[in-house]
Every structure is written in structure tokens, then in C-alpha cells.
């Protein structure tokens, strides 16, 4: 057995990206869910859909606002969090765990260099 190391990066649009090999799991940050308030609706992309970096890939709607979730990196959707649309409160209770949105197989891993690490993201949110 080999251990695959994963790293977590962040975007300026308050998404987190957990990278394991060539696969990126995407969700929204604790800060983002606090700003949104109670999430009531989630729309996920289709598995197999291809997105360029920065394109709208999913939708999240709270009691306060509706927002797009952008593809943080270019690639093809490899998996989605099937249970999330039926239980959108997971985005509030566990945004960086069970409340993940989708996984992308990266087509351009060099885009990773443009994302923030945790320290830079904390500075970005003014925390």
C-alpha cells in the first residue's frame, strides 16, 4: 500500500480544493458558508462535464442569496456528492468535509500554482 498525500488550496471566491494526485475535490470554505447563511439548495454538475477554470460549475442557494460555484481548475467532473442536493445543510455543518460539491480530474495541473495556501487565504478573508 502506498500513501497518497493530499494538499488543500483555496480560491479568491472562497472555494477549497483538496488535491490528491490528479484529482481535485471542491467545496466552499467555512467563511463562505458563514456569509451565505443556511443553505437550502445545491445544484451539481453532471459527471463527465468539462469546465475551463473560472466557469460556473454548480449553484448554491441560501436563505439570503444564490451564488455560482466556479470550477477552480480546468478539467472533467469525475464525481459529485450525490447526497448533497437532498441534504444541503451539510454545506453549513461540514463545509470542508461531508459538504463537498464535486471532484475534477485536472487537465492543466499548472493552474494549481495560481491558488492560495491556507495562510494566504486567511489573509484574503481578513481573519
Amino acid at each position, binding site marked *: 500500500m502506498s500513501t497518497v498525500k493530499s494538499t488543500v488550496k483555496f480560491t479568491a471566491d472562497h472555494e477549497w480544493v483538496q488535491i490528491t494526485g490528479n484529482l481535485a475535490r471542491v467545496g466552499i470554505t467555512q467563511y463562505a458558508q458563514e456569509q451565505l447563511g*443556511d443553505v*437550502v*439548495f445545491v445544484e451539481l454538475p453532471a459527471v463527465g462535464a468539462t469546465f475551463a477554470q473560472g466557469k460556473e460549475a454548480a449553484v448554491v442557494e441560501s*436563505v439570503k442569496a444564490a451564488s455560482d460555484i466556479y470550477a477552480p481548475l480546468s478539467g472533467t467532473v469525475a464525481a459529485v456528492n450525490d447526497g448533497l442536493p437532498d441534504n444541503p445543510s451539510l454545506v453549513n455543518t461540514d463545509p470542508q468535509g461531508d459538504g463537498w460539491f464535486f471532484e475534477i480530474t485536472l487537465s492543466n495541473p499548472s493552474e494549481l500554482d495560481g491558488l492560495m495556501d491556507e495562510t494566504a487565504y486567511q489573509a484574503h478573508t481578513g481573519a
Partner: protein
Amino acid sequence: MTAQDRSQGRHSRDAVVELASVETTSGHRGLILEEPLIFELGQPGRLGVDLPDAPKAPNRLGALARRGGVGLPDLAEPQVVRHFTRLSQKNYGIDSGFFPLGSCTMKHNPRLNERMARLPGFADIHPLQPISTVQGALELIDTLAHWLKTLTGMPAVAMSPAAGAHGEFCGMVAIKAALAARGESHRTRVLVPESAHGTNPATAASIGFSVDPIPATAEGRVDLAAFKAKLGPDVAAIMLTNPNTCGLFERDIREIADAIHGAGGYFYCDGANFNAIVGRVRPADLGVDCMHINLHKTFSTPHGGGGPGSGPVVLSDALAAYAPLPWIVNRNGSFAVLEAAEAEAAHSFGRLKAFHGQMGMFVRALSYMLSHGADGLWQVASDAVLNANYILASLKEAFSAPFDGPCMHEVLFDDSFLKDTGVSTLDFAKALIDEGYHPMTMYFPLVVHGAMLIEPTETEDKATLDKFITVMRALAEKAKAGDAEAFHTAPRLTPRRRLDETLAARKPVLRWSPPKLAQAAE
């Protein structure tokens, strides 16, 4: 006489406030009755009228015949009358009191308008009756069109759009048709400032344009440099709201118009906030190519629960040829209706609505215009802006205004004055309900945090505004004094207290089912 003498044995105010937390045996509170659904009121066999038995007739429906009852409740007439009267009493509207819902222009609906709309020649006609019998109604539409063109300085107007967003759709389809006629259908990007109405990006996207947001400046206006940087050969249009949803006039609007035209795009202006400038600014002079006008805002026709919207769209020469069907044309004093893309309307993009538009609203809007006159409409805009600035000036110490300087017709606050109080914008709005006010618009626009958007309109007098200001200041003081619990449990004086809005959105119950069917479904 002393105060006690005047009480004549009535309880003091303190006792009344205590009652708010008392549960009653009936579930009613005062004369506010606990209202069941009309289905729950029904009892089998009750009748409102005495109908004769249906005559025996052969069944020609075969397998299509209904096998069970239709599930309508059996009710007597007094039950029906009381039920709907009580529901109407629960409704809060502009006829009940101050309605400061920002961005909605909840102004008084003059009764003269209602009287005019009920004239049989306008009320009792049908769009399919012979044109020769509705010449007066067509002349009214044409006259309203004339004044809309005069007030905006624009050469053409499409009357059929049924509301603001429908008007946006109309304008953007006209732009799409104009681009196609120029052979430039590759222009698919629409620039939408963050300070625009939320329907603008939705409209652009629904027609197949891609939406490119333009950031706002620290002043709450379009970032001109960012806008210019986004111009390019694929830009179809800009959709801009002026005054914008921060209640601010876009000062650079002429430069924005010139730049979008220079780049080969069109200028859509959202006219929802026309009430702030009607009679004082002509959108044509700002370089606008098309703009919808909410008759149900600026021109006082009822909306919300009170009636349908109506959103005529004024068009520049560049777009006029593509206006939707039908076209009402004046042929030597007699009015004709062009129903197909022919003659003058040969380039029309087609039909948006079955008929001519919201006739009842046309009558009301023209009645409003003619009864005010040019000087009266000028005064409308002036008073609407004055009222908003009176609120801004009176509350800016206790609240937090995100942008410096005066506003137009509506006042925007953010929630920084509530920082560390534990009270949110939502809590604040709920507390206003207990004070007898319909809450302001909240959490919109998105460009500021925890937005509160207040639009008093010209309808309200100083006494109403002063009372509202007193209440708002008192609530702000209460929040800052640390009484967060009172806000979290508000409203407390309503038949229902704080509702679980999250549960309502996550698991909405949108229709009643008879108990038996509900069991069968489980």
C-alpha cells in the same frame, strides 16, 4: 383631569404588553383569528346554494369519466365570506400603511386611476373584438405610448411586456435581433455591473448571452476603468440600472454610453428606478438604446398582491424596427393593429404576449400622468429623492451608510452598525414587524454586507417619516444596548412568531392534501 380619570377603568399599557406572551384557549389573539385552510373548514353536505339535481344524461366520457370527487370543500356562504375577508385583513399593503420596501417603489395607487380603469369602454372589452369597436382603447394605448416617448426622449416604445423582467427580455431580444441583422451574432457577452438589478444578469443568461460582471467602486458606482477594460469585439451590450440599486446616480453614464457604442455594443438601461428622475432626466439624453419602464412603480399602478405589473420598453432608432408584435399604428386618425411581421413591422422579432399588454394598467398609468402633468411628475421625482435623503440624514448617525454623500430615491445601509451586537439584518427586519412596519428590502444589493434598502417614495408625509425614524433609531439603540434576545425572538406580536425560514425553503409544503391521500402516499 388626571390620566387615571381618562382611563375609565381600562387596563394600563403595561398589562397589554404582557398579554403578548399569553396563549388563548381559542388560539385567536384579540380579534386576529386563527385561520384554518378553507379545505379544513369544509364539512361534507354543507351547501351555499340550493342547486337542482343534474338531469340524467348518457355518459359519453367512457374511461375518461372522473372516478372520485374533485376534493373541493363543502361550505356555506357565510363561511366563505368570512374566510376571505379575514385573509384580506391579514394582507399588508400600501393601502394599510408605510411600505418602505427598497427597489419596489411602493407608492400610493390613486383612486382616480381605479375609477378610470373601471369605465366600461376600457374594462368590458376583449382583445379579439373587431378593431372598429375598440378605437378608443387603442387611442389610449397610443396616447400613453406618446407620453412615455416624450418623458424618455425615445422614438419608439413596445407596450406589450407584462412586467419589468419581461421588459428586460424584450429589450435584450431586440438587441439580439439587431446584432443578427448586422451579421454580428458572435457578440454574446453582456456586461452587468454589480450595482444592477438582480434580474439583469438572469435576463441576459436566459437569452443565451454570457454575463460578465463589472465591479463597483468604493463609491458604489460602476468602476469605469474596469468596464472599459472589458470592452471587446464580442460584447453585445451593457445592462445598467440608473439610479442603481445602491440608490446612487451613475455619474459617468454618458461616458459609459459612448464607450459601449464605440465598441459596437448596445446600452440597456434598467428603468425600474425611473421614479427618481421622471420629469427631470430624459434617458435618451443619457445615450440609452432601450429601457423598460415599470408602470407599476413610477406610474402608480398597483402591484405586489394588488395587480399585475406592466413594463413597456422604450427603444432607440437603432432598435425600434425590431419591437415585438403587435404594433398599434395610426392610419389617418384610425387605429390599426399589425399582428404579423409585415409593413412597418416587417423586422419585428415576433410576439411576446398573446395580446396588446396590460390594458387596465395602461388606463391607470395614463390617468396618473395626466392628473399630475409635467410639473407634477417633476415634483414626484423631487419629493421621492427628498424623502429618501431625509431618512438618510436622520439615520446615518445611528446606522451605517456604506457610501458618502446624498442618495437618490432610496437609502442603503449596511450592517456594520450591528457589528458584535449579535443582531443580524434579518433580526432587525423581524423586529420592525412588531413595530407595525413592513420591513425594508434586506440583503440586497449584494455589494454591501447585510444590506437594508429603504425606499419611502413621495407618498409619505413628514409625520410618517418622523415616526419611522424614531422607531428605527430606537431599534438601533436597543440592539447596541445588548438586547439581542429580543431581536432573535421577534416578531412576538404577530399570530405566528419567528418562522423557520430554512426549513420552509428546504422542505416546502406547497399544497394541501386531504388527510386520507396523505396517509396513502406514506
